[in-house]
């Protein structure tokens, strides 16, 4: 088996598994006042502190959620509602057309139900938003912008956004910026304080932690309107009993991701470059998606379009040979549609049907790359015979 879909989810780190399983048998609600509660509280707060340290944030800026999607929704909707409540003129949401659906669909929902005017900042052929485009969009009417939400790095094509340049522009107008950094953590130098972001989404299972836990890093001056009402946990922003074992394991994974980042990025980047070279050697007309400059792309990401192929066919044929990858964002599964990300970069719609994303991770080996190198040529040839149905 060659598992090359780490961007969808990556195996839990043994250290995280250990932290989690050790806590599973223990009772204790972190909101309770007795000894068991205090122990749970301590575990959560230690996790909060280590995760904050790993991400360049203050502990009070970590709001635990049930995952990346919830954190994205809390940031986008919550900040929109709060900013609009403070000034009814603020109804414009600036985003990019290459966002994950957790942001894109939340923004659509605001447009459909909350009177938001959604504006998509242009991206270049690499899928990147530029600071001058943001400046132009804001300058048209700085008073009506509720928030800006642009991801840190793209989950499909791996393109890294100029986050600090974007936040610098928004800061001139006092507009908060949210970034979905789910893919960036562990691969890029993610420092919340230095980023200038108001809010930032991170997820447990993408960095070797458990499923079902994530966090919104949230600047102390921001009070988004909550999605969930209840016990008032997490700064009154996110009610719900905290999942203590998951928080602890998430924190362990986050700490290790930060500690190992530089070395991991170097090694996985080299392996990724091998994979790209192997695919190009086997299929000379394969088109690399995203930024060809390693400085501008996630080190674990390789994305290709194969002319004349259906992504589904490629996936099926590789799967049959034990190679597991993705046609794009796994959330689009069901009826395959050309990826909105790939289309947004100006790729021809027919070409956009034949995309594959290989994403590497901490268990990836040279053997995985060799398996792709051996399989991809014949697989593409066969998929071409099947054509575009």
């Amino acid at each position: 088996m060659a598992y090359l879909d780490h961007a969808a989810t990556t195996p839990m780190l043994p250290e995280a598994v250990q932290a989690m399983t050790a806590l599973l048998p223990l009772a204790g609600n972190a909101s309770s006042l007795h000894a068991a509660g205090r122990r749970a509280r301590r575990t959560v707060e230690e996790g909060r502190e280590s995760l904050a340290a790993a991400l360049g944030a203050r502990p009070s800026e970590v709001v635990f959620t049930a995952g990346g999607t919830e954190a994205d929704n809390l940031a986008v909707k919550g900040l929109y509602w709060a900013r609009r409540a403070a000034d009814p003129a603020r109804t414009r949401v600036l985003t990019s057309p290459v966002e994950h659906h957790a942001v894109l669909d939340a923004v659509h929902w605001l447009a459909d139900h909350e009177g938001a005017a959604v504006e998509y900042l242009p991206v270049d052929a690499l899928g990147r938003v530029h600071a001058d485009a943001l400046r132009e969009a804001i300058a048209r009417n700085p008073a009506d912008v509720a928030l800006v939400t642009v991801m840190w790095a793209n989950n499909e094509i791996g393109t890294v956004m100029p986050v600090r340049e974007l936040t610098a522009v928004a800061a001139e107008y006092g507009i908060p910026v949210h970034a979905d950094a789910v893919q960036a953590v562990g691969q890029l130098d993610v420092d919340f304080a230095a980023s200038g972001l108001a809010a930032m989404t991170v997820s447990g299972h993408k960095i070797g932690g458990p499923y079902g836990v994530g966090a919104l890093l949230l600047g102390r001056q921001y009070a988004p309107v909550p999605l969930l009402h209840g016990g008032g946990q997490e700064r009154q922003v996110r009610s719900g009993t905290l999942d203590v074992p998951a928080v602890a394991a998430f924190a362990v994974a986050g700490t290790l991701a930060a500690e190992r980042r530089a070395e991991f990025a170097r090694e996985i980047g080299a392996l990724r470059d091998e994979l790209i070279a192997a695919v190009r050697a086997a299929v000379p007309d394969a088109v690399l998606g995203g930024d060809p400059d390693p400085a501008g792309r996630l080190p674990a990401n390789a994305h290709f379009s194969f002319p004349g192929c259906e992504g589904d066919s490629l996936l099926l044929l590789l799967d049959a040979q034990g190679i597991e990858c993705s046609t794009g964002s796994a959330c689009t599964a069901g009826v395959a549609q050309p990826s909105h990300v790939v289309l947004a970069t100006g790729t021809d719609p027919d070409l956009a049907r034949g995309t594959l994303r290989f994403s590497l991770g901490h268990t990836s080996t040279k053997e995985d790359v060799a398996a792709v190198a051996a399989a991809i040529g014949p697989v593409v040839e066969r998929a071409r015979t099947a054509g575009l149905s």
Partner: protein
Amino acid sequence: MSDFPGAPSAPRDGRRLRVLAAMSGGVDSAVAAARAVEAGHDVTGVHLALSANPQSFRTGARGCCTIEDSRDARRAADVIGIPFYCWDLAERFREDVVEDFVAEYEAGRTPNPCLRCNEKIKFAALLDKALALGFDAVCTGHYATVVVNEDGTRELHRASDMAKDQSYVLGVLDERQLAHAMFPLGDTVTTKDEIRAEAERRGLAVAKKPDSHDICFIADGDTQGFLAKRLGKAEGDIVDEAGNRLGTHEGAYGFTIGQRKGLRIGHPAPDGKPRYVLDISPVTNTVTVGPAEALDVTALTAIKPRWCGVAPEGPGTYTAQLRAHGGETEVTAELVGEELRVRFTEPVRGVAPGQAIVLYDGTRVVGSATIAATERVRTGAAAQ
């Protein structure tokens, strides 16, 4: 490990047969896929997404193109333990089945979209893609049987259980398509309850799912409403055989020959007997009605014949089926050029241009053709 009668030939290199199981999300196709696995084949499940805008949930027992159906199919594949994919054939389906369906009604004919789907989608678009990707066969939950002759040629036969038989909607398959078709349910004499019991035994949740009967792309079952939306209102006259105006209609396409209900003619016929649609003329947008006996058809011509094997030569005696759930009737048929000329031993009623006629020799499907024109006993209702 026993294979089904007429299963595609085993690959020469000794590997297992690679089978693509079309899984609608219903009980039949799920059990068919499970049986193909049990027979020792290398099976992959695929659900065809045929609707560009799938509804989230099934409403009642209609249709088969919702996201819920796709999930049901996926869940069944998980239980069976086979890979599963969802293939988007919505565009092909729209072009080859839905548009054809609308155009046929618009032309005053009565199409059968299920036949068309088998001909153009399941055993064409899907089969071609499957073969190109290295599969040997497409497996479906249809009730029909394939028989292999000593010389290796294949025949399509009715299912062992006549009550379940679906060979009519497969009558469009030619020998090449048959060579790659697998119908694991065809040789079982069984009731639906037994198939459901088998699904239950196999742990398939679709065991309790209601059957789908209607046209899958018309989710609410309202064919007239669907056509009205597509074709718009076109008011015209309802006349009797002599041409007297009896009433009006809102679109000739909304009628089917032999239809009795929904004519909304105010006054009764002089003889007090019910009136039926005898003829639909899209050119004049006129619907002709008359008594039941005027529906009696003695002969027909049919076009676009497709043969499950070699085309028959000279006139021959066959049994014919004219509707998916219709009975058999004796005919003599002859292929003249590209036109099939059929004469009924006894007059039959309710024969509409656009329908398929499937010819049988005993249980063997000989072939099919699309009815183009009919000859009536009474001359008043002119054939188209």
